[in-house]
Structure formats: C-alpha cells, structure tokens
C-alpha cells in the first residue's frame, strides 16, 4: 500500500526531512534533530504540518445535542468560538478517539480526529445520528492543518493575520480557521483551511522565523506534558477515567459510555500514570514495569525528556503517586517513581 502524503509533503523532502510511515502517511519525523526541534518549540517557535489529522463538520438543528451525546463534554454549554478537548467513547466507555470540538455556532461545529481514526470516528458519528437532525461531512482530504507552537507564536500570528486569538478560542479569516490550540503544552495556534492556501502560509511562517518541527519532537513535547497519543496510550480498550482525563467529562449530561463510567467510578481501576526514571536511561513503549519483583504493567509511551534529561514514560498502574517501581531495560531493573503528570 502506498503512503498518503500531505499537501506539504514535497516541502518537507526539499528541507531534507527524515521521512517515515506514520499511521499510513509519509511524514517528517525530524528535519535536523529531535532535541533541537523540541527546544525550539519550548524556547522560541516551531511549525508542524499536521495535515494528516481530520476535519469532520457537524451542522444542523440538533448539532449541539448530538455532539453532547457522542462526546464526554456537554457541547450545549459551549459558546461561539469555543474549542474544547474531549473524548469520543463507545458503549463500553472505552475511548475511540480524543478530539477538539470547534464551535462556529450552536448549529455548526468541527471535530479534529487523529489521522488513523478519521473514518472510524466518521462512521461512529453516522451510526449514532439517526435520532438527530444533523449533517456530517468528512472534509479531511480538502483541509491542511498547521500548528504554530512556542512562546513566540503569538508574535508570528499577529504579524501574519493581525487578529486577536485567545487560548481555546477560534476565529475565521476568509477561508481559514485559526484557533488557540495545540498539543505541545506551549502557547500556540493551529491554522486550518483549504489545501490550496497551505504553501503560502507554510513558507511565510518559515520566513518569519518559525522552525519546522517533525513528529519526533511532537511526541516528546506532548509526552513531557502527559498528553495522550491515540493508538498508543489508548487503543480501544481504556476508559476516560483510566486515562486520567476525568476533567474532560461533564457528568451533568447524558453521553454514550456514561453508564459504564459511573459504574467504574465507584470501584478501583488502573490509571495512566507518569513514571520518571531516577537512574540514567531512556524509557520506551512496551518496557515492563515491576513492583517488588513482580511485573505489574508495561509502558504505553516512553522517551527521554529533552528538557529534564531524564527517562519519562506512561503506564496503566494501580499505584499511589510517589511509589517506587522498577522498569526493566535490557534485563536491568532501573528505579523509577510514579508521578502525577505533567512531567514538565
């Protein structure tokens, strides 16, 4: 099967990016080095091509009640211009995908699912829409998405668009949707629109000084903040409660999966926790976690924090914060501490 390419694919190749297969897409993992790109976003400003992510539009009379039903958030409570991170659950309360709901009006919304989940989310929305008067369009192939992230991102946005954009708010400028969102934990923005406009914006932001950032640094940036990676930290068999994201649930509304979450809430369950390595080493997904000599879990995510210069990882554990565990790396047991994310 040939890999899909974003509208900026050739730009990445021209910049000398190392290209890899990511969720069926031929994507840049790094342009220069993951560590220098990571630091550029934490200290200055970087730009990411995340056009592989989806854009699903939901409109109609019942759009807000429909989206409230299929997500963990009460979308009825969102105001025009609000962007809200939440989860889409199946009937068992398991996370299908995490997404941001963009509110254009109370009859007009956009969801941004992860690349590998676009068709699954689209099908799931359609499957559950029969009682609602809504239109659902998948426009993922018509849209680019660029993320401009880092402390200097506001300056660049102002320079280019001359528009005020607050965190978790969106604004429209001609065909473009610009929002105060991102997945790095830094101040940042995402720009979406028809792919014909992508070249100009990409080139302009590079000229203004944004550093191109690959998926490698995107992963270390999100992991330092404890953000979930779809398909890795959840893969269809974990609930929102287990993922440690109970804050994305509005319990005062009815939504798919709620009943199972209410039952789970009363009992004990494993929760995705941070592990900070206390010895030198790099954590990797799949490494085994031990407590008092017994294997208790595996890491879902793992890397080295370029800022902390320590191994960091995520794992589903039923262990109190502060516990000491061991992570097995090449048959050595290295000491780690269970911590509340974010790491940084």
């Amino acid at each position: 099967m040939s890999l899909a390419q974003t509208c900026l694919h050739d730009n990445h190749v021209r910049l000398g990016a190392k290209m890899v297969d990511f969720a069926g897409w031929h994507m840049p993992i790094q342009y220069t080095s993951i560590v220098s790109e990571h630091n550029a976003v934490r200290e200055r400003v970087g730009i990411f091509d995340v056009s592989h992510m989806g854009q699903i539009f939901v409109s109609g009379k019942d759009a807000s009640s429909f989206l409230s039903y299929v997500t963990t958030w009460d979308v009825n409570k969102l105001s025009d211009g609000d962007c809200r991170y939440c989860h889409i659950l199946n009937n068992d309360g398991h996370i299908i995908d995490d997404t941001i709901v963009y509110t254009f009006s109370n009859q007009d919304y956009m969801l941004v699912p992860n690349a590998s989940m676009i068709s699954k989310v689209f099908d799931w929305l359609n499957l559950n829409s029969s009682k609602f008067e809504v239109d659902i369009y998948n426009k993922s192939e018509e849209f680019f998405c660029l993320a401009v992230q880092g402390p200097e991102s506001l300056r660049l946005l102002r320079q280019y668009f001359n528009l005020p954009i607050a965190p978790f708010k969106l604004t429209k400028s001609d065909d473009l949707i610009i929002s105060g969102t991102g997945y790095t934990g830094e101040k940042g923005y995402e720009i979406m629109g028809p792919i014909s406009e992508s070249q100009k914006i990409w080139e302009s932001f590079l000229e203004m000084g944004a550093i191109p950032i690959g998926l490698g640094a995107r992963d270390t940036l999100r992991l330092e903040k404890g953000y979930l990676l779809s398909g890795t930290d959840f893969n269809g068999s974990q609930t929102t409660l287990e993922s440690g994201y109970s804050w994305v649930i509005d319990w005062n509304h009815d939504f798919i999966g709620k009943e199972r979450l209410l039952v789970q809430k009363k009992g004990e369950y494993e929760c995705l926790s941070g592990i900070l390595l206390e010895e030198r080493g790099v954590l990797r997904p799949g490494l085994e976690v031990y407590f008092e000599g017994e294997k208790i879990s595996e890491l879902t995510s793992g890397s080295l924090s370029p800022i902390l210069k320590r191994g960091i990882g995520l794992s589903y554990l039923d262990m109190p914060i502060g516990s000491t565990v061991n992570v097995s790396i090449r048959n050595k047991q290295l000491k780690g501490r269970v911590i509340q994310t974010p790491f940084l």
Partner: protein
Amino acid sequence: MSEIPDNLGYTKDHEWVGPDKGDGVKVGITDYAQDSLSDVVFVELPNVGDEYQRGEVMAVAESVKAASDIYAPISGKILAINEKLEESPELVNESPYGSGWMVLMKPSEDRSALLDSDSYKNSLD
C-alpha cells in the same frame, strides 16, 4: 557526506577501530552512524575487564527515538571506557572519531576482519 578518516579500521555495522599504538585501540561509531542515530542521549558502555568476541553486543547508543546495539568490532578485552559519555552523550554526535570514542580495547586478534576506509565507504553507497 560523512567523514571517513583513512587511518581507522571499520565494520559494516559502522564501528571504527583506532590504530594500535601498543596500549590498546580506541573504538567508537562512525560519523555515518551518529548521523543516522541523531541526538545520542544515552550510551550504555561495558565494564572494564569484560571480554568480547567480534560481533557481540558490547554497548548501546540510544537516541530519542531508538536504541542501537554497538557490536565489538574486534575480539578483545575492555581496558577503559569513555566516562565522559555518561554526562555528555552528545559527544558521540559532535566528535564521533575524537572525544566521542566509546571504549579502549586490548585486541586478542589481528585486524584482518576490519574494512579499510575505501571499503567502508563503498559499503555505504
């Protein structure tokens, strides 16, 4: 274009072996290898006194993305390790043939299994 000094011996797995001046040979990874790995953030080195057969895993270099085994390019005993790599693994990227060396070995075999710089260069093409 990666740098391949003439005076070193090489393996197809991208290790280099320094000239033998009678007090052991230095071993490290090539410029090509450090560039492919990019951002070496952790190096696990063997213990002084350990003995390795040619081709055995003797060290691991980890980048942010992946861990790569480093094989003994020549059979022999570890005489010393580059302790600076514990604090500064990035030396492997900055100076793969200089301050980024990994171990000092006392070879127990001759260098006939090693590639010269031209052969190593050809193996990269």
